[in-house]
């Protein structure tokens, strides 16, 4: 549905995005993940045709966003970063304006506006001025304007930023409900958001794509081997040595210096570990398998990238 091909964007000599390539399939929710300043917003703006790319091409439903800008913009619903809205309009007036400008006929407008207000649950706010709304409602109005006209593609730039946890959950489940119907690109720097809502992740750093996969695969890629966290009551030095001597254990690190250890092993060693602790007469309080989170993957990729760039310099 969306094909981003070797897209670069330079502001003067400064590269904001460098040869970014990725695809989004129809009905897919793609997470666009990266630290602040990685080039997420610039990429989003290129996707909506606001910035023409310096190099490369973007196609939405087979149409080039630069050549067929108007046709592409008809298919896209966009929620820009920080949700800029016309504060001096009421919610209803603003949504009618959006419906009008998106080319909805007079007889369709009422229904379209009513639907998005219902989906985003802002009916109660219809007569309020947008500038008087709370952040959560502004965000929902922003999402509502993107949904007006039922576009095939939704581009959402940090849609949950600045919301309270309950509102975040609501927005996330709303986005999730689009799966299969709409093609969604969701940019964020919040990792759990991606693992919760997205089917696939593109990680971008310093303007370049550093990874592209499902959240599960990305975690698995880093979580090779087994990591176990144990808490044992017993003399520190002797426990540590005993753990190290267990067959299959690669490394032992003390987490807090008071009985919690992190083990890296080649294979499943939990049964042997439990036996060893018990037979030595120590107390076993806790034993957990730790899998690498997306956070680890992210940090790993981003730091790897950094050292590589520094090497070049």
């Amino acid at each position, binding site marked *: 549905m969306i094909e981003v091909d070797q897209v670069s964007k330079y*502001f*003067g000599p400064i590269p*904001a995005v460098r040869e970014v390539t990725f695809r989004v399939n129809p009905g897919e929710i793609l997470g666009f993940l990266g630290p602040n300043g990685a080039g997420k917003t*610039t990429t989003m*703006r290129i996707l*909506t*045709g*606001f*910035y*023409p790319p310096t190099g490369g091409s973007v196609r939405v439903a087979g149409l080039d966003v630069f050549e067929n800008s*108007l*046709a592409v*913009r*008809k298919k*896209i619903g*966009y929620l*820009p*970063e*920080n949700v*800029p*809205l*016309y*504060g*001096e*309009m009421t919610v209803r*007036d603003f949504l009618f*304006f*959006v419906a*009008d*400008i*998106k*080319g909805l006929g007079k007889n369709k407008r009422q229904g379209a506006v009513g639907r998005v207000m219902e989906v985003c649950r802002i009916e109660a706010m219809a007569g309020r001025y947008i500038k008087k709304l709370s952040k959560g409602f502004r965000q929902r109005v922003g999402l509502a*304007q993107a949904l007006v006209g039922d576009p095939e593609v939704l581009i959402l730039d940090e849609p949950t930023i600045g919301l309270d946890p309950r509102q975040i959950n609501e927005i996330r489940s709303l986005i999730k409900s689009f799966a299969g119907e709409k093609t969604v690109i969701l940019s964020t720097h919040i990792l759990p958001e991606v693992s919760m809502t997205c089917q696939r992740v593109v990680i971008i750093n310093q303007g370049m794509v550093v990874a592209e996969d499902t959240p599960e695969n990305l975690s698995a890629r880093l979580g090779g081997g087994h990591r176990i966290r144990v808490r044992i009551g017993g003399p520190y030095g002797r426990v540590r040595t005993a753990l190290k001597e267990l067959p299959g254990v690669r490394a032992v690190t003390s987490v807090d210096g008071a009985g919690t250890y992190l083990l890296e092993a080649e294979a499943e060693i939990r049964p042997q570990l439990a036996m060893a602790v018990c037979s030595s007469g120590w107390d076993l309080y806790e034993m957990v398998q730790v899998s690498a989170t997306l956070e680890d993957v992210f940090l790993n990729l981003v730091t790897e990238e950094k050292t590589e760039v520094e090497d070049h310099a």
Partner: protein
Amino acid sequence: MRNFWTIFKRELRVYFTSPIAYALMVIFLVVAGYFFYNSLAYYSLLSFQAMRNPYLENLNLVDMVLSPLFGNISVVMLLMVPVLTMRLWSEEKKSGTLELLFSYPVRDIEVLLGKYCAALAVFMIMVGLTGFYQIIIWSLGQSAPGVAVSGYLGLFLLGAAFIALGVFVSSLTENQIVAAAVSFGVLLLFWVIGWSASTVEAPLNRVFEYLSLVKHLVNFAKGIIDTADVVYYLAMTFFFLFLTMRSLESKRWRG
């Protein structure tokens, strides 16, 4: 075309749901009314003297009250137009709504013309309110509909040029105060540039005189519609609207 109306309606609505249009109209009417009252009072003073002075018998309302009215209105508009146009692009740039607006399927030119015509409409409403003065002049027994029509046509063209310049300046900055100050300064310069026509060398003085905004309104105020004046205002209008289009485009390339 439909998008033009959508933008036009929204912009016009913003003028009238915020205090901008009302504040401008009130101030404009107070100042223009004061000018009008003054020339009427002066006229009545002179006409009393004319009863004893045979040299003043050619005195008439059109020359003494109606014609100067258009010049006076244009001076007040010099101050009002920058305030009218300053928000058109600057506000959208500052709040980020410009990005949202251009994510909708609209052409730049439709947005530009919608905004431009909304400001021009407010301008025409303000100028139109001075129609009451015409009723007063008419009720005093003298009417010159030709002069009134040409004068208002002149003001319309002048407003079109003023607003085009203001719209262009607003597209250059995201700060409304800067937009207003720069538009005012440039308009003022175009106004007074004619003054140096008498002091500079031969080929240049004609240019300065031609560029002067005042000079071109004088004919209209007398009831003369000269194509040279019409072309001057239209050229200014198109030139600044064209520059605005370029300025909008370049913003996207440069970020």
